[in-house]
């Protein structure tokens, strides 16, 4: 069996047989299930909480697009934060606990070690996204009686590009910083910078900073500006970041 496949198999087994199978899926599934219910019953919840303070203010009747919006917002905030924290140790955890020595003293290159981790974890995130989106869509259809699939899946696809970018960012930070906590802190810093950058239109239009806004617009089924450049720049940036991570890792003392 090819070394890439052997190591990929180990990565998959590690996800399935350790805590990693619980954390991210639990977050994704919680939002997938709770989102449509919260969207549908928001007026009732607000009414119950605010009571008389609401006066005669009529809240808009919720639609399936609210459930979609809630799903994408949760993905772009809490789930992305979870990705940043979990993948802060994507490479450094193996370096710090020493398992890397027994793996890399065998015929597996450092490039393969990093690349396989990125690919397997991106596939894992994509699989979770598919399950979560499917669940959101099915529940939304059941609750609202109508749920057009296009806006939800196109928004989810845009978010997947964003998630891949963050896995790549965290891979580089994990290799360069060497501490999972340090890398997670730096990752949150990158998240803040990209959020601020999204305010400036040229950056929003042509860089990864525009992805969360595009995903939200698609989910809301509102007019969405051109998505090609943010998607393309994110994918290119992801490849470049992983390539840099490989180069940095090759030069590391283990």
């Amino acid at each position, binding site marked *: 069996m090819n070394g890439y496949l*052997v190591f990929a198999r180990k990565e998959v087994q*590690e996800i399935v047989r350790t805590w990693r199978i619980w954390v991210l899926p639990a977050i994704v599934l919680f939002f997938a299930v709770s989102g449509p219910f919260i969207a549908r019953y928001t007026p009732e919840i607000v009414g119950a909480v605010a009571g008389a303070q609401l006066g005669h203010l009529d809240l808009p009747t919720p639609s399936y697009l609210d459930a979609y919006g809630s799903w994408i917002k949760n993905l772009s905030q809490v789930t992305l934060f979870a990705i940043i924290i979990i993948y802060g140790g994507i490479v450094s955890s193996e370096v710090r*606990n*020493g398992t890397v*020595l*027994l793996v*890399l*003293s*065998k*015929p597996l290159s450092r490039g393969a070690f990093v690349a396989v981790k990125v690919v397997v974890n991106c596939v894992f995130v994509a699989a979770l996204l598919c399950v979560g989106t499917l669940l959101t869509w099915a529940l939304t259809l059941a609750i609202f009686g109508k749920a057009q699939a296009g806006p939800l899946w196109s928004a989810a696809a845009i978010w997947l590009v964003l998630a891949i970018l963050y896995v790549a960012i965290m891979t580089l930070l994990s290799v360069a910083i060497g501490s999972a906590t340090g890398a997670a802190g730096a990752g949150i810093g990158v998240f803040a910078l990209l959020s601020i950058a999204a305010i400036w239109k040229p950056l929003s239009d042509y860089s990864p900073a525009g992805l969360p806004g595009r995903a939200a617009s698609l989910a809301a089924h509102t007019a969405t500006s051109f998505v090609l450049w943010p998607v393309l720049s994110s994918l290119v940036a992801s490849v470049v970041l992983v390539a840099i991570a490989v180069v940095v890792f090759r030069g590391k003392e283990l």
Partner: protein
Amino acid sequence: MNDAIAISSLTKRYGDKLTLDSVDLVVPEGSIFGFLGANGAGKTTTLRLLTGMARSTGGSVRVLGQDVASAGNPVRSEIGFLPDVPAFYDWMTAQEFLLFAGRLFHLGNALLRERIELLLDLAGLNDTTARIGEYSRGMKQRLGIAQALINAPRLLLLDEPTSALDPMGRRDVLDMILSLRGRTTVFFSTHILGDVERVCDTVAILDHGRIVAGGPIDELKKRYGKQKVVIQVTDGADALAHSIERCDWATSVTRGAHGEIEVAVLDVEAARHQIPAMVTAQGTGLVLMEAGEMDLEDVFVELVEGAKS
């Protein structure tokens, strides 16, 4: 005979600290080579350079005829490596880890299952189905040796292989190393000199990043193995040690764990005559005076202490 390892002018610096200082070392193929040194001498750094886990500051490292820095996978295919503290995936069982390791070497399933059975038996782990996370340090060490042998390597690099083992485990590992003689080159670092004397044919002694001696053990004993005199006195051992140090027949004076004085001597007859006279002159009593040949441990202490002074 080809060289399994050829190190030339190898230097490794971490910031201002010089860990290896122009190390030259040749390990003939088929030999069992002991790499001796106190803790912090640079043994682990040398092994990391040999496996490509670290990069040298200067000099060259050739393993099985190939440059370690550039050869990559082809050279690693023929090496087995046990780090000083082997770390495994705790969620795997020993069998799963050996399967994973063997597959990284592209071994076929039939051969792999045969080897796993043999190695689990050798490591004394064939009866356990527990996950590695539940293993003791000794069990991990034995599994570490098993995984280093999964590819039937031409060169086996072992960093302190017996350090975490009980006496029976140590004996088994040393027997296993002996059984590889002639088939596999074994390079192992240790500070346990008894292990080296038992299995190695050739050694090198590393001290503060420099090779201070090397060669076949018998030759080393002949070259550095002066005679020694062990003395025990009723009191005044420090003063006596100072007096002996000034004698031209004494090359080194060390103190043993129980207060005895060990003197490496060039002329044992001169020592036999003069030491009792010195003890008498000091007004103390002589409890013990024995003369004998130096063993490897004495040679090691002599060379390392000599390098310090």
